[in-house]
């Protein structure tokens, strides 16, 4: 085997692996990505029940109903639209009324969002960026938490 042939085999294997990977990536990107919407987006452009997406907004004050079975009910709002959410499981520690939240799941035929995961915040000053941006785009004034980056001089 010449040096050229050997190199050819190596390049061939490399290209084959890359093509397989590219195929997998394209396939997975079509099926495994999840879009992000706010409640008022849903009012403008309804989404079919059963389709997975991420819902972002603020947890409406006074809307959290805990303690009735293992399910937790709350309402996600962007002050323009509201979507009721049902989540089964234990909420992240920093889940709070009036704070930003991102839930992932799908709509039920009745229009309730069935969340299977609720995104936790890592930092008490943290507002999920897409929530902050989406809310800003809708002209919602953000709370104190969003304006004070962690570590900035108070």
């Amino acid at each position, binding site marked *: 085997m010449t040096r050229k042939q050997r190199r050819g085999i190596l390049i061939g294997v490399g290209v084959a*692996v890359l093509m397989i990977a590219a195929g997998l990536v394209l396939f997975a990107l079509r099926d495994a990505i999840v879009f992000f919407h706010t409640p008022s987006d849903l009012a403008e452009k309804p989404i079919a029940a059963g389709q997975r997406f991420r819902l972002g907004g603020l947890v409406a004050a006074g809307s959290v109903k805990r303690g009735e079975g*293992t399910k937790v009910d709350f309402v996600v709002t962007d002050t323009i639209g509201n979507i009721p959410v049902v989540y089964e499981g234990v909420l992240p520690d920093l889940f709070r009324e009036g704070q930003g939240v991102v839930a992932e799941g799908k709509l039920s035929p009745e229009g309730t969002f069935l969340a299977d995961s609720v*995104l936790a915040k890592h930092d008490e000053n943290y507002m999920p960026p897409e929530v902050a941006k989406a809310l800003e785009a809708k002209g919602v004034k953000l709370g104190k938490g969003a304006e004070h980056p962690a570590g900035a001089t108070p």
Partner: protein
Amino acid sequence: MVVELGHFALVLALLVAIFQMVVPAYGARTNDDRLMAVGEPAALCQLGLLIVAFLSLTIAYVTSDFSVANVVANSHSTKPLLYRISGVWGNHEGSMVLWVLILALFGAAVAAFGRNLPPTLKANVLAVQASIAVAFMLFILLTSNPFLRLDPPPADGNGLNPILQDPALAFHPPFLYAGYVGFSIAYSFAIAALIDGRIDAAWARWVRPWTLAAWMCLTLGIAMGSWWAYYELGWGGWWFWDPVENASFMPWLAGTALLHSALVMEKRDALKVWTVLLAILTFSLSLMGTFLVRSGILTSVHAFAVDPQRGVFVLAIMTLFTGGGLALYALRARDLRQGGIFAPISREGSLVLNNILLTTACATVFIGTLYPLALESLTGDKISVGPPYFDWTFGPLMVPLLLALPFGPLLAWKRGDVLGAAQRLAFAALLAIIVMVGTLAVLQRGPWLAPFGIAIGVFVMAGAVTDLASRVRLGSVPLGDAARRLVNLPRSAIGTALAHFGVGMLVVGVVSTSAYREEKILVMKPGEVVSIAGYDITFRGVAPRTGPNYREEVAVFDAARGGTQVSHLEPSRRIYDMPPEPTTEAGIHPGWRGDLYVVLGDAQTAGGYAVRVYFNPFVRFIWLGAVVMFIAGAISLSDRRLRVGAPGRARRVVAAPAE
């Protein structure tokens, strides 16, 4: 006063680093020995100054000096000592100081232990290392200065986010950074070699121990983060394919590839051009990780709120070093002479396959992590790429890698005998098939691919044992001889086998816990029993308790198996005093076949509590596998041939440090 001293030391360190960046490189260019020699004392001096800066910040934290803005924002006087110390790097500014400290530590280590490096190479390495330090020290001083004072000082601080007050997390960032930043040495060596236009097997021999040390730390750092997420976040998950996790995982994948390609270069003088590129890419991925975490542009459980100006600064640093490195590579790579021919089926060939698969896997993670960002900036659509994407792309690429893994060490350099290797692996394959059939027969549930995944893990583990067994000729020589041979094996051979064994453990843990996890969510009243995975768990009730800086509600559960009590679990819900944040502490019973994991939920209006119970089979194998890899790296590092700066040490008289 101490704080000003630290601030001053940091500024001085910047000046020393500028000096170290310019003078030795100029010396290397003009071939002036005296100018090149100043790199060494400068690197040591820079380290000394950064130690002073870091210690003074630590003192401010330990003594709770609330005239310092950074301490106020992140600490509190009632916080336990360990967390007052870990609070130093538990925030943006302090963690960047740790970043440059570790950078200087690696640079100083090259200066101190690299006495036998060719002088021009060493001068260039130290200069490149210093240029990275200059960029990051400017970043700290201009955008994220931890030494700023407050006037008047408040009475007490804001405290550290309670979920960060945890022993595993206290040590997670230093290890992670030691890994990230450690790859800077590989980068500096690569750039220095490109500047020199000369590279040989000795280069790989110098680079490999540093890469290995960085890789070990990164392995342990990632494992600690995963372990922390597992027991602290209360979801029982250990990996979320979260962008910030991926940010640390990509350098790990590239670094693992680099370790293996540097091996080919060292032993066979081949793959030089590729190894240099990989060294540049690995550190570039580390920089990108820093950028992703520090810019706050990602939605992530880890995202820290930061000011966009900082993100732009880190982006500029990243572009400079990645772009600069790659441009230099494009210009000079052609000058690096290729050497070492090998057949496709050979040790080299298997390591090339390892590299192709690892870098491709790294690329799929890269696409999955950055695609949402790219799409949003192009179309405005906001999407997230979740675990299914990674299961579909990363998973299939790991299968051929893991299947080929046990063959690699059994093949000879240059030209290997794949049939001979297959014969030696017959026993390992048989064992894997037995485990696969056994898993199918016993469990008869879960995804159909899972038994295959477990079998692959077992194959890798058994393959590692086979490698050692065939090296010591177990079975063909008396047992005593085999034992003596084992002791006399090169440490790096033992390290290789052990690291591969760790990979197998990790695979078994990952597959079994992902496929066969059991979960129950229910409302329980005191006295009620829930059964899961053969355990009967009795809920005894809830009582309040007070900790050093928190109050908690503790639930008591007794777990029994076949009528005998095996464990007493106490999951709790805490409210910290400062900041007043709630956290959930899981109750975990580690068993050899898996963990029992209980989380206390909300109190119910009708009495009782919501409770989440999990059984995670073999989940500990994941972290044990990582620890085994770390130990394997340490064993390998202790090999005489690999020892940092070992070849021909102390040939030259040690120059007395100047200044």
